[in-house]
């Protein structure tokens, strides 16, 4: 029992070495799913025994934007909507780095939507994990690009009349080589998916549906994280490689699983091959 007596020391959480202790506890509310996503991410990194020096985590603005700061690795917290654009510079400048963007639905798909579709189109080898909480949490719960029809938010007091993005469909249509969707209740599958995403070539995308009980939930009769998790449990159906176009999120059904998993040469690979080609010719 010798080891036990050592690890009963409270701070010795097995994955605490991946976190910037100085930044803990994180700013997220009780029942928020961002912590779960962070937890899954570091577990994935741990299981893959990744070299943290070769990892770069970039995030934008919003609650989940703080993630970059919490992970004990190269991290950058950009302006609103620009993490993918920033990550593009990093990945191209040093293709040996594993560049992961962890950000929110508003950051990535409203203000940053243009960067997302173009990075996917280029098949640039950056990995994007989107925490989808259906609204702008940090600014107090405004309507966003993923807010479900009829949902109440601080800016849709009469119910949302905008059609939300179906993120997995958008990602697949834009050319992502790996597309998956899980909820924060599917922690094991989410972790496995993240491991896969970290090992794949090209642009990869995971939508992690995440409870926002304090803000979104408060407006929509799910006041606790548990209630939102129970919704995920009730509504989610695991269907691998189903048609992403048919995977809209409704109160009744959330199709989760992998939607796309293909091989396609990444932008940086083609670019550096081209550079090598040109210089070979030059040498002749």
């Amino acid at each position, binding site marked *: 029992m010798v080891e036990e007596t050592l690890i*009963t020391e*409270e701070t010795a959480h097995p994955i605490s070495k991946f976190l910037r202790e100085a930044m*803990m*506890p994180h700013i*997220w509310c009780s029942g928020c*799913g961002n912590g779960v996503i*962070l*937890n899954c991410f570091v577990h994935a990194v741990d299981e893959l025994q990744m070299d943290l020096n070769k990892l770069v985590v970039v995030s934008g603005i919003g609650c989940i934007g703080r993630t970059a700061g919490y992970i004990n690795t190269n991290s950058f917290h950009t302006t609103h909507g620009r993490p993918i654009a920033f990550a593009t510079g990093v990945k191209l400048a040093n293709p040996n780095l594993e560049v992961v963007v962890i950000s929110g639905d508003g950051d990535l798909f409203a203000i940053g939507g243009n960067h997302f579709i173009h990075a996917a189109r280029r098949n640039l080898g950056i990995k994007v994990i989107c925490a989808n909480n259906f609204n702008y949490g940090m600014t107090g719960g405004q309507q966003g690009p993923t807010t479900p029809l009829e949902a109440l938010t601080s800016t849709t007091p009469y119910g949302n009349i905008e059609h939300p993005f179906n993120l997995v469909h958008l990602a697949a249509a834009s050319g992502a080589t790996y597309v998956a969707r899980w909820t924060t209740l599917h922690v094991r599958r989410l972790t496995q998916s993240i491991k896969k995403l970290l090992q794949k070539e090209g642009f990869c995308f995971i939508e992690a549906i995440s409870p926002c009980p304090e803000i979104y939930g408060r407006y929509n009769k799910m006041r606790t*994280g548990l209630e939102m998790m129970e919704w995920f449990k009730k509504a989610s159906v695991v269907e691998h490689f189903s048609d992403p176009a048919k995977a809209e999120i409704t109160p009744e059904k959330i199709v989760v699983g992998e939607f796309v998993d293909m091989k396609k040469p990444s932008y940086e690979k083609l670019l550096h091959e081209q550079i090598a080609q040109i210089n070979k010719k030059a040498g002749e």
Partner: protein
Amino acid sequence: MPVRLWRTPLDTKKVKLPKAEIHIIKDQCKGCNFCIQYCPTKVLEESEEINAMGVHPPRIIDESKCVVCSFCTAVCPDFAIYVVEKQCKEGC
């Protein structure tokens, strides 16, 4: 072959199921209760005490029921709970 299974299997005692040691970092808990709700063997419950965050952290009902699936560790948004398997010496 539906046979009524009413006996305790003869080799029940021989099977070694993992013994757990659950660590709750009380003051890091924000009281979302995910660990309590989704524990498959219902090892945890909400305690009365109030922690640094002003919430009721989980409390262990019966550690022996824990099978070290570690779902609580995986689902905790606040890194406030983890489980280690007892490296038991002979006898345990």
